[in-house]
């Protein structure tokens, strides 16, 4: 990657001030996204992966305080005026949410919702927007798009609604598509279709994708590069093949061992258990957050936050004792 990346996030931190104290949802995250790249951000619930994505478009409630920089197209997204941000949202950066059931407006037709961003950002006339909406529904492989544009979200199945969400997100041919758990609420046979669609859109429109998921299988399928998050921090980052072939952070290794592999599960002796639980973000320690669950933890791990270090080409690990085995 010699050219400047499309998106460059640097030292992103997000805190929420709540009655129960300050919650550090994201702590000094940095990552980049190249053009046409699919970046997977993986982690368990509460690791800050969704908050990271939402903070880029400032979609968080006012209780969130965000610091850091996110350079996109010569602008700092985090410092941009709301006027500028409005021109970016849905136009240059599209967003697909997890819940296709609740993120569509039930009282407007599907067509009208797809047309909205076209009319706002592109200034298309009503009829031109309708024509484009039909094309877009066709692009995301919704059968009979001329009829579907006039239907309401409740008339569509979950898979179809997610396709509508994607059609809305790519309506203005954004440079970046952020997809937050786009297939989690869907059945596997539907999930396969959505993943194929995202791959196709990347090919046809050249959209770079940030895919947020807890499913390592989805990442293995579609991502070029992967960031593993744990407790608001980046634990590991590597190109996808490198990450799965040579995971270095004990958390990544633990996660990979914890999943029953279809096709090989009967041969697996036992699933790996990661003892303990994900720490509460309200009491994020000022040492390695994984230490209480880690078989490699020692004095050093329990006294300092491990810095990211390079362990291979484009392979970064935040661990004092990186290595390929679960124990040291």
């Amino acid at each position, binding site marked *: 990657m010699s050219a400047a990346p499309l998106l460059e996030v640097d030292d992103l931190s997000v805190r929420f001030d709540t009655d129960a104290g300050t919650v550090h949802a994201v702590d000094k995250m940095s990552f980049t996204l190249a053009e046409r790249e699919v970046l997977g951000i993986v982690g368990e619930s509460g690791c800050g992966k969704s908050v990271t994505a939402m903070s880029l478009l400032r979609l968080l409630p006012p209780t969130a305080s965000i610091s850091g920089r996110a350079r996109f197209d010569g602008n700092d997204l985090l410092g941009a005026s709301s006027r500028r941000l409005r021109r970016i949202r849905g136009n240059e950066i599209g967003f697909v949410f997890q819940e296709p059931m609740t993120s569509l407006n039930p009282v407007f037709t599907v067509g009208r919702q797809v047309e909205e961003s076209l009319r706002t950002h592109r200034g298309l006339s009503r009829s031109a927007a309708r024509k484009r909406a039909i094309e877009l529904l066709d692009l995301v492989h919704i059968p009979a798009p001329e009829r579907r544009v006039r239907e309401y979200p409740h008339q569509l199945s979950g898979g179809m609604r997610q396709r509508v969400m994607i059609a809305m997100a790519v309506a203005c041919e954004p440079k970046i598509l952020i997809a937050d758990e786009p297939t989690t609420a869907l059945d596997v*046979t539907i999930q396969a279709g959505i993943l194929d669609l995202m791959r196709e859109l990347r090919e046809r429109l050249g959209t770079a994708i940030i895919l947020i998921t807890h499913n390592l299988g989805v990442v293995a399928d579609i991502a070029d590069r992967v960031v593993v998050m744990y407790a608001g921090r980046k634990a590991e980052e590597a190109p996808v093949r490198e990450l*799965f072939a040579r995971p270095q952070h004990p958390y990544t290794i633990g996660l990979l061992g914890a999943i029953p592999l279809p*096709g090989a599960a*009967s041969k697996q002796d036992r699933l790996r258990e990661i003892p303990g639980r994900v720490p509460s973000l309200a009491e994020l320690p000022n040492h390695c957050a994984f230490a209480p669950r880690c078989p490699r933890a020692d004095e050093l791990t329990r006294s300092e936050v491990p810095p990211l270090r390079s362990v291979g080409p484009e392979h970064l690990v935040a661990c004092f004792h990186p290595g390929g085995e679960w124990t040291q």
Partner: protein
Amino acid sequence: MNGAALEVDGLKKHFPVGSRLAGGGQVVYAVDGVSFSIAPGEMLGLVGESGSGKSTVGNCILRLLEPTDGTIRLLGTDITHLSRRAMRPLRRELHMVFQDPYSSLNPRMTCGQIVGEPLRMHAIARGRELDDAVAELFDKVGLRAEIRFRYPHELSGGQRQRVGLARALSVEPSVLIADEPVSALDVSVQASILNLLRDLQAELGFSCLFITHDLGTVEYLCDRVAVMYLGKIVETARTEELFGDPQHPYTQALLSAAVVPDPEVQRKRRRIVLEGDIPSPMAPPSGCAFRTRCPLEHESAPRSHEEEPLLGDIGGGHLVACHLVGPGRAAPRLIDVPADVLEAREA
């Protein structure tokens, strides 16, 4: 099968929907003729996508729903229409673990009371004896003894699911119905619950109906698998056979769609993407319920439009409901078969 722990025969559950006044009177065919049996100590995985009726099967067996038709036999006793009172002593033999560990534990009871309740209800233990039994159960499911005095809201999801499991196993049931017991949990916690369930099954020897949408989990845990589609079982086989040599086009599609957390494998796999969505169970297609999405529909038509395929044995207890499959006639291969399975077949 004689001596089966649980036997389900021709189970149907139809839900009437819509107002009859408004010309409604429609019926949802949630479960439409499901038969299977589970041998003592066997784990049967019931797999299907949302809306396939797999949870309804579990709820009918537990008598949380009244079946429309068919029979359910628990240890040889017909429990299909037993009254609540007559059912009560048999509840000792049949227990369940639910999907959501947040709503399936009473928030006003301590975890110790929750786990001890079945023992009290069935008058198995009381007083000091009860306390000891509960302590032992907590130890068995890997919970610290002091958690007995905590309330469910103080526990994590994984701990709550352990409490649920301890409660279900407290009376040493013959049959455990587990409905998506790990799908609400984080990946790193899922593994420990699955391992625990496997250990406890080996130790206590109960039979288990494991209901899930996750194929990897089934393969890891179960001896036999039944695949459901639109209220019917389309294929049943021993786990190795079903994963190694799936026959029904739906099973093949389902296996091909499951993602493997390994980019080298995942990106080489042939994937069948099914057209369309699962049809409404209010108006299932005529003939074969899968024909509207079947990639082999052109081969099975017009028979698949008129005649419903029945589950038939293609050898060794491998049952398939497909017009294209019969004894000595394997289904067209839609997905790549693992090399070691081919080798074994040729040898």
